[in-house]
């Protein structure tokens, strides 16, 4: 009888052990030989290709997501080897245009005015904003719970966070609006610009949201970009600037006219009513692309003059 009990106990122990062992599953192991080595490095794409750059007002990630399908469309439509490149800052962008490293420029009108003035870039198309406007404007924002700022005049003496000195919607348009209300750059306690590279529009919204500055200036539409990152009820729009011409496509100075024609034709043929094109345009946050000429951007040039901005700087 004792022996039987002992056997039972041992059996139970064995089963329990088995259960525990059975619970621990291990993936199969693959043997590899680490001794076989090869030299690797970034293989630059061989051959001539057309470079496409998007002024880094957003992060490279957003820039890539917005324009990846558009570039794929252009490559397919024109048969050209087109590649998107990602300058880190506005200055680098303009410098690369000047160096001829950017063939197709998609920039704000102020940067266009500058590269047109400095580097001979030529506008050939402009966009229709996603909400259907051909023009766009800037917005001045603050925290919703900021009781000291109720209108644009209250911004005097406050700290201002802007996108970039070369940003149209994110700085210059707002600066023009402040000047219209008699507020000069010196009247602000501090003017800071969002650090690069990329994502500068979003950084302004985030800085205001975080309370690092009292007010911020952004182009219209940016709030939608960061709507999934912050509580939008905490942001209040104090004022909006007048409408200015929207973002512009321009060719670099060295672009072959035939190629330019192909590209222009392809871009202008994008139709929002075409489901395939709609997917491309929606990804790029564009309603459509329409032809333009350089004179369409004279209001911007006038603003620069009014703000005493030297286009050569």
């Amino acid at each position, binding site marked *: 009888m004792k022996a039987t009990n002992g056997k039972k106990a041992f059996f139970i122990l064995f089963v329990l052990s088995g259960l525990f062992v059975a619970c621990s599953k291990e993936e199969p*192991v693959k043997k590899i030989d680490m001794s076989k080595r090869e030299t690797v490095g970034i293989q630059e794409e061989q051959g001539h290709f057309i470079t496409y750059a998007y002024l880094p007002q957003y992060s490279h990630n957003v820039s890539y997501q917005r324009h990846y399908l558009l570039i794929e469309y252009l490559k397919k439509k024109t048969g050209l080897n087109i590649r998107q490149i990602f300058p880190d800052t506005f200055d680098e962008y303009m410098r690369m245009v000047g160096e001829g490293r950017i063939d197709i420029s998609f920039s704000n009108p102020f940067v266009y005015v500058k590269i047109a003035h400095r580097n001979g870039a030529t506008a050939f198309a402009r966009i229709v904003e996603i909400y259907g406007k051909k023009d766009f404007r800037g917005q001045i924002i603050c925290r919703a719970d900021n009781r000291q700022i109720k209108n644009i005049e209250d911004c005097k003496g406050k700290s201002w966070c802007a996108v970039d000195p070369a940003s149209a919607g994110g700085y210059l348009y707002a600066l023009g609006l402040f000047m219209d209300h008699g507020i000069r750059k010196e009247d602000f306690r501090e003017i800071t610009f969002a650090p690069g590279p990329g994502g500068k529009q979003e950084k302004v919204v985030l800085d205001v949201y975080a309370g690092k500055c009292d007010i911020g200036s952004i182009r219209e539409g940016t709030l939608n970009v960061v709507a999934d990152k912050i509580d939008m009820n905490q942001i209040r729009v104090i004022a909006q600037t007048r409408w200015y011409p929207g973002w512009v496509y321009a060719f670099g100075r060295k672009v072959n006219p035939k190629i330019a024609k192909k590209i222009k034709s392809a871009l202008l043929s994008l139709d929002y009513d075409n489901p395939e094109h709609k997917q491309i345009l929606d990804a790029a946050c564009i309603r459509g692309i329409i032809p333009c000429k350089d004179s369409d951007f004279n209001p911007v040039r006038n603003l620069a003059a009014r703000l005493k901005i030297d286009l050569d700087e």
Partner: protein
Amino acid sequence: MKLELPQIKLGFRGKVYLGIISIILLSGFLMALSVSTLVSEALSREFKNRGTSLAVNLAARSQDPILTMDSLRMKDLITQVVNSGDDILYAFILDDKGQVLSHNFDGGFPVELKTANTVSENQDCNIRRLDTGEYLVHDFATPIFIGNHRLGTVRIGLLGTKARETIQNLLSMILMLTGLSILIAGLAGAAFADQVTKRIKTLQQASEEVLRGNLDVQSAPALKKTCSELINCNNTACPAYGSNRRRCWYLVGTMSPNYIERKRANRVKNCKDCAVYKANSGDEIQHLAESFDAMTMALKDHISRLAQSKATLEKSERKYRRIFEASMDTIFVADPQGNFLDINQAGIAMLGCESKEIVLQSVNLDDILLEPDSFQALCEEIACKSFIKDRECTLRAMNGHELQVLFSCTAHTDGKGRLISYEGIVKDITRRRNMERQLLQADKLASIGQLSAGVAHEINNPLGLILGYTQLLLRGERNGSQNYKDLKTIEKHARNCKAIVEALLSFARRTETKRVPIDINQTIQKVVAVVERQFELDNVHIDTHFDETIPLFTGDAEKLKQVFMNLLMNARQAMSKSNAGQIVISTAFARPQGEIHVTIQDTGSGIPRKIINKIFDPFFTTKPTGRGTGLGLSISYGIIKEHNGQISVQSEPGKGSTFTVTLPVCLAEGGQA
């Protein structure tokens, strides 16, 4: 060959140790097993989460460098990741075509590693274990996505050494804790076992004392306060009063106010709320000791009462055994088949056996019953009435004597009505029946005597006249003439009649018996002398065996001679004339009874059973008409009775008869009558 392990008998202490150590070892083993498994799983999960997190994070951070093809930033990112932990063996980035963009290996990238782990687009991370020969590596592969477009893949290799080290440390800790637990439990178990074994040993010693017959033991501790002190009880009649040893909840007949007689079966349960029980009851071992003490006390009491009962029973047994054995009547117990199971001394004597064993082993009622002729007949009667009372039966004892008995018997059955035995009493009435028969015979003879005397007296005178006139007429007749012959015939028969009448008168006449001291041996010798010569001529020999020690008998010598003459003549006549015979005459003196026994034994034809009771009747004779009067034995019987003696006969047809005359002797001082 089977290995026989030595048998080790563990004591209670050893079992406690073994139990405690087994439980702790088992729990330690299970704990180590379960904890190591759980921790291993948790660490593995955490390890995988960490690897996945590192890979996903690197994938997120490498988007921009990939877009800008910034190899320096990619290298920085990889270096940061590899330096963030000792267990990160490698990290590298592949583009969407599977080409390595950046890695941390020195001396070139391992070719096989590139394709060792892949991750599909719908997976966040794929983990694969790789064996490099030197390390076991968990390889984490995470895709790099921007929107829906896959830019490439991030791969990170983590060593599982840290997780193993943590588990080993944990197991060491559990082992140490288990050892510590065994030590503590051993000390605690020793204290516990000491206390328990001490009490069990006390109980064991008490048990051994009981086995040795000493019931005056106490294994439970004495009460500090008795029940009477606890509840201020003054009932001195209560068996528990003032006792520091008795537990009232085990006592029958306690007079505690909390005790309810009807609920005696649940007494301990009923006592749960009693202050005495609460104060004096202990744990299970104390309960055991208390119940053991109560049991020994009850046992002692029971044994005492049992001894008393046994003494009473033995006394009763002796009394009834004495009655049984001393009874003058036979008392017996027999089984349903008639075999004796027990019988008293009177029964043994009646059956003519030497010992009870012989009766029990060899005698069956069925064998000894003559009337009725089977025991079954008696059983049927008993079955009808459950008993029989004073049923007159005839038995044949083992010595051949037939006995007249009164048989009373009852059947003994068990609870289910099955017959177990017969119990009965047998009263021997043989002597009484003989006496009754003799009395009857005497009465009969007296009546016949009176009648005969009257008839003889009336006939005697006419017979005298007939004989006188016949003799007178004979004188006038010529000798030889017809008348003479006829008168002679008349005279002959008249003389016969006269002889009969005289015998009758002699039988009936109460002649005075002249009692004088006589020597029976001489008296018999005188008779033998008369007939011996004649008998010798008939080839019949007479042997005498006289007991010379017999005393003188006071009686009528002539009458006794007549008796012996009659008996000798009868014996002679029982033998056929052609065959030789022998008559043996013996005398003996039975001093205890004070009787002279005279036996006359012949080798004649014997007496048939059907007439043996009639031979003493007057006029009963087996002789042809005119040859005997049938009064000889009747007269002899009468003479012996006059001497207060007895005459009896035993006969076996074809072998002979034995007549026994018993004469009582009144012994004077000096042994003479």
